[in-house]
């Protein structure tokens, strides 16, 4: 699905990512940890192709395409979908219209999708205008459900979300990642995955709440622009909550 090779990224004069190597397989969900300011958001923004993030070295391959220098919309059309942490308000653009544009040429039932994330009342409002933190998350997910990406990039799904909405968001992220397929007793999950389109995830979390809703396969810690400590995400989380990120310093040196 995604292969990142020796990626170096600068913001202004400062190198924020220094030689990232990462492979995410089809149908795999990868969890990214790391202290504040370590470069997690930068990695996501670079994968999406935003202007401020200058790639000085390395490559990004997505579903067989070298997208290192591709424009944002091309990445989106190839199937990268990102949930923004602080998306801008677009005045005069109704959320309904935005969701329809996300689907491009495919037919979608905007109202039905909106009901799934409790956003039906927001469809006639301007995109993100006065949305609360939790509402933004649901609005982003609504757009992503319409967009149907192959790779879901999600920066801190928990931030600003109450417990009840966390459940809704958790289930919805899971649905986007599994393409709506849940385990059934009569056929193995593996068989079903062969039939469906592959969807992978790259999710940043500090709290790990989202892990309760997903089958997250692998995780890693981003520390000071370097990736390290690959393990099962739950183990990483336990480790960090016990020892903090100090261990990473040792492991890197």
């Amino acid at each position, binding site marked *: 699905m995604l292969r990142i090779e020796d990626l170096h990224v600068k913001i202004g004069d400062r190198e924020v990512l220094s030689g990232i190597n990462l492979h995410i397989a089809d149908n795999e969900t990868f969890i990214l940890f790391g202290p504040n300011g370590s470069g997690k958001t930068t990695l996501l923004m670079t994968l999406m192709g935003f*202007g401020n993030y200058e790639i000085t070295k390395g490559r990004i391959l997505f579903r067989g395409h070298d997208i290192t220098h591709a424009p*944002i*919309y091309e*990445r*989106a059309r190839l199937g990268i979908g990102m949930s923004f942490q602080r998306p*801008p308000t*677009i005045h005069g653009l109704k959320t309904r219209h935005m969701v329809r*544009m996300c689907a491009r040429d495919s037919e979608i039932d905007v109202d039905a999708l909106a009901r799934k994330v409790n956003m039906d009342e927001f469809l006639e409002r301007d995109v993100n205008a006065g949305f609360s933190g939790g509402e933004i998350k649901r609005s982003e997910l609504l757009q992503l459900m319409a967009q149907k990406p192959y790779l879901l990039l999600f920066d801190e799904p928990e931030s600003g979300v109450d417990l009840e909405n966390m459940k809704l968001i958790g289930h919805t992220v899971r649905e986007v990642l599994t393409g709506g397929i849940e385990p059934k007793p009569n056929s193995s999950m593996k068989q079903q995955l062969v039939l469906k389109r592959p969807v992978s995830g790259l999710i940043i979390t500090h709290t790990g709440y989202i892990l309760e809703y997903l089958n997250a396969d692998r995780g890693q810690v981003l520390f000071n622009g370097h990736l390290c400590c690959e393990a099962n995400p739950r183990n990483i989380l336990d480790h960090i909550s016990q020892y903090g990120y100090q261990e990473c310093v040792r492991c890197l040196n």
Partner: protein
Amino acid sequence: MEKIDLKDFRFTGSTLGEIADLRTMDAADKAEMLMSGIDVEERDRAGTYLQVDHGRVHCKSLQQGVEVLDIKEALARYDGLPEYYWTQVDKDKDEFTRSAAGDLHGGYFIRTEKGAKIAEPVQSCLFLKGDMVGQNVHNIIIVADDSELHIITGCSVAHGSKGAAHLGITEIFVGKNAKLTFTMIHNWAETTVVRPRTGGVVDEGGVFVNNYVLLKPVKDLQSYPAIRLNGRGAVARFNSVIVAPAGSHVDTGSRIELNAPDTKGEIISRTIASGGTIIARGFIGGNAVPAKGHLECKGLILGGGVIHAIPELLGSVDGVELSHEAAVGKIAQEEIEYLMARGLDEEEATSTIVRGFLNVDIMGLPKELQDVIESTISESQKDMF
């Protein structure tokens, strides 16, 4: 802004005579009128007034409760309309008002009956067809107590016009608990000079909503409608959407005076300079309490040009609440990238943002008119990027 010399224009001699069926007009003229919101079929319209150059060609009311007359006829029938005629605009204000006062060519007189709620809009078009024609019109709108009316008035000029001048006086009277929505769509040409002079008054509980749309080039336009809210609880709202491509000089704004308690005034303008010059004015005066006024003046410069925003607030009593918000800038890169991350290419993203910025939606126009405006916006975007 160049000086306009009225002597360059012909103020006599161009009258067409009656056009009974608007569908018989030539296709190019019809296309121009359609862009100004005129439905030549006259379906879903409560009446029509159409003037070409120096005289009326079509005038009728299609619905009970609303009177649509040629102003000349109305002046003759109602003893010169002394309570209305030249009461809201000063005859001696400038050479343009004097021209309209000295040699009246036409204009409409539209009046509702007390309590009549006219569901369909009355449409009007003041059309400039001949080359170097000067047109003097005087319009009077009276919305009687407890009645409601929507007027869609378009001004157009024939395709390929070498030059024309439109001087238009409009006087507006909104009665007690009455509501007038007045939608004006200007559809001029690179060679047209335009000097509307508009004034009006709103009585107790009355509502005046003014929508103004200018998307096509115009050589030189200056307009500054002034509305006085004289009755308790009166409300006025101006929404303007203005695009000035290269060669256009547009000096426009609105003025609201809050002269009674519980009055409210709002001026919202969205302007885009794509090579031309826009002076976006706005004035709200608060002279009674409680009263509220808000002015919002936002401009984008896309592909050159000048925007000069001049929002003015004047409070003359304790407790008045007036505010304004003005911005002149560019489209935020962050917004473009957000939409691109949803699969829109840069052009789609920019045009989506521009459309949202102009936000014609808030005018609440009939669907077919909204569609015409949307497609005109798409066309005018070619100049913007």
